[in-house]
């Protein structure tokens, strides 16, 4: 019998015992659905983590420091490369060179300093950092109130929520609910904040004298005040990577640089680099893709700098998700395994019921292969229907879980997330898997039906 004819007969036979076959098919659907829901959740979480890390800038960023600072990030870096004293300084020309490397989008210096800020007359001490304009799309600004900087050189500030609370005199009590960032934003946005800072300026008269003389510091330090406009209150912590040194007030990077604020490294440099240009304590190099990290790191090391990136962390993360997906897949498949027993049961029942019919078909000239093919086609058809319905069901379950999670997140004042993702290969794979499982389940019943003795089967009432 041709495959098309077997399939047509099979679908007909399935329709005939509609209730029983539907129930079996629903069993398969539930199995496929649980598999799809589990895996789509795993894939979704992986995607979410990947997306988060991608936009957090951890994975496409290499942090460059000078070896002069004697701060290798590990033993290997300290042992290899040029001696600290011979290594290049991390200054503006070096930064430009870093930016010229292939696959580098930008290289920006880390500007940060502790200083005093005045709000409505009262002083507050905190860490201030420059923020490159490119970090506008950073996830850390999800849920931010107000706007990002209007330009890279505007005298504007974005405050971290904790600092905003401090300005308003609302120090949160331990264990109390987080303050809603919206409540903080209303009294602060558009207000003025006065930044006090010490500027490092070249002192021409002094410096010429110093150059002729000994290793004297060749710059002046001048106190300044600068008014800033509060444009945004960030809910999350954009500078979390910096740990203890993390800033709570952010300025546009170009603007921060233009202030020439005295940096911590400046003081140290005075002992070694008489009258030279300022150096950066570290430079962040942003790459086109996390894939380029290794190559760029190698290139930078060749230039004589120390580098740091977190690519190794991705590797273990990927491993973690592979294991997670495997476990989710196994749990999802359990239901499918149970469903496959249902198929065997249904088909064995069908053979008993249709014994006479099998006998008739054999008497009419159907071969063992024809009978086997017919039952195989029935199992396969249940697999196709079960798979298709299961994918739809799994998709719906995933959506519902996602929706529920987002309702919860919103209640907790978190932005909604896509924690569930169904790639096309999962849909196709689940249906194919369901068909394979169904066919395997049909193996035994089909061969049993094929082996039936027609004379006996015809005698059966």
């Amino acid at each position, binding site marked *: *019998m*041709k495959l*098309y*004819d077997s399939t047509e*007969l099979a679908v*007909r*036979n399935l329709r*005939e015992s509609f209730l029983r076959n539907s129930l079996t098919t629903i069993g398969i659907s539930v199995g496929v659905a649980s598999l799809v829901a589990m895996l789509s959740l795993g894939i979704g979480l992986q995607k979410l983590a990947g997306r988060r890390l991608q936009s957090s800038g951890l994975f496409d960023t290499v942090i460059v420091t000078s070896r002069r600072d004697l701060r290798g990030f590990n033993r290997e870096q300290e042992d290899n490369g040029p001696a600290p004293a011979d290594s290049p300084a991390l200054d503006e020309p070096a930064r430009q060179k870093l930016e010229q490397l292939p696959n580098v989008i930008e290289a920006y210096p880390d500007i940060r300093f502790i200083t005093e800020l005045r709000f409505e007359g009262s002083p507050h001490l905190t860490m201030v950092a420059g923020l490159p304009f490119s970090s506008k799309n950073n996830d850390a600004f999800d849920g931010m109130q107000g706007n990002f900087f209007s330009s890279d050189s505007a005298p504007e500030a974005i405050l971290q929520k904790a600092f905003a609370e401090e300005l308003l005199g609302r120090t949160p009590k331990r264990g109390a609910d987080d303050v809603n960032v919206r409540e903080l934003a209303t009294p602060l946005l558009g207000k003025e904040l006065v930044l006090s800072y010490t500027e490092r300026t070249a002192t021409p008269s002094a410096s010429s004298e110093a150059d002729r003389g000994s290793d004297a510091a060749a710059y002046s330090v001048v106190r300044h005040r600068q008014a800033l406009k509060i444009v945004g209150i960030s809910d999350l912590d954009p500078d979390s990577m910096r740990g203890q040194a993390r800033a709570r007030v952010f300025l546009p990077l170009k603007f921060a640089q233009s202030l020439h604020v005295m940096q911590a490294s400046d003081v140290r440099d005075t002992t070694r680099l008489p009258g030279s240009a300022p150096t950066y304590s570290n430079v962040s190099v942003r790459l086109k893709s996390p894939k380029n990290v290794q190559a760029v790191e190698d290139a930078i090391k060749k230039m004589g700098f120390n580098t740091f990136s977190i690519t190794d962390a991705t590797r273990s993360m990927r491993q973690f998700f592979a294991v997670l997906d495997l476990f989710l897949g196994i749990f999802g498949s359990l239901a499918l395994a149970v469903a496959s027993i249902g198929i065997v049961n249904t088909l064995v029942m069908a053979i008993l019921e249709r014994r*006479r*019919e099998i*006998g*008739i*078909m*054999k*008497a*009419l*000239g*159907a*071969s*063992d*292969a*024809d009978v086997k093919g017919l039952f195989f086609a029935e199992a396969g058809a249940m697999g196709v229907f079960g798979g298709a319905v299961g994918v739809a069901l799994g998709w719906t379950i995933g959506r519902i879980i996602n929706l529920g999670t987002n309702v919860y997140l919103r209640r907790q004042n978190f932005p909604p997330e896509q924690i569930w993702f169904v790639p096309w290969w999962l849909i196709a794979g689940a249906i194919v898997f369901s068909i394979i499982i169904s066919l395997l389940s049909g193996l035994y019943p089909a061969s049993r039906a094929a082996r039936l*003795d*027609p*004379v006996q089967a*015809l005698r059966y009432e």
Partner: protein
Amino acid sequence: MSTPRTDGNPSPEIAVLTDNICRHYQMGEALIPAVDGISLEIRSGEFVALLGTSGSGKSSLLNLIAGLDRPTSGKVVVHGSDLADLSRAELAKYRLHTVGMVFQSFNLIPRMTLLENVELPMRIAEVNRNKREALALKALERVGLGKRKKHRPVELSGGEQQRASLARALINQPRLLLADEPTGNLDSRTGTEIMNFIREFNESLGMTIVMVTHERALAEQYARRMISLADGKLIDDRATASAATAVVRRGEL
């Protein structure tokens, strides 16, 4: 196709030859000889009735000729091919193309319409889809059921069901029609109707007919030759009164 029977021809082709065939069934401890050493020859175009009481082995013999069962010993040769030489798949092909079967209980598939039932052997034979429906309809019309093609077997009378099963048996143009008590479940009027169809197939299509029956009268009226069985053995083999000419008979074994 079969060669039309020409009466008086001294040696028409042998359609069915059985040589000392036995079929023994194991029932627990007991060995039951359903067919016990039957040798016979049926020539192409003959209409043979197998007579006997129930348990005489006539249906078992028919199943052996039909290739539904294999003999314990002896051989069955149909149109020159020894069924013992055929594989299971080849035997299925033999049933599909060489043999048409009609049963006492009709054996139509209840979930299918008449048209689909008649179409089924063509489906198995992988006849082109486009031709099947027309052929099946033609076969149904031949037995007067053209208007009933969409009906399911349960919606029909016994006579109609048996006519449909006749149409199904003939659809692949077999050379041999094996009928197992074809009128057993029918009243005498519809039984006659069926027998007339069978006779017509024998006479106009030249099909070889082997019919199992326990009604001597029916055999006398329609068949040309009666073979009587008892306890799995052949006890009598002779031409019926309706046989116009002498039937070639095999000598004593």
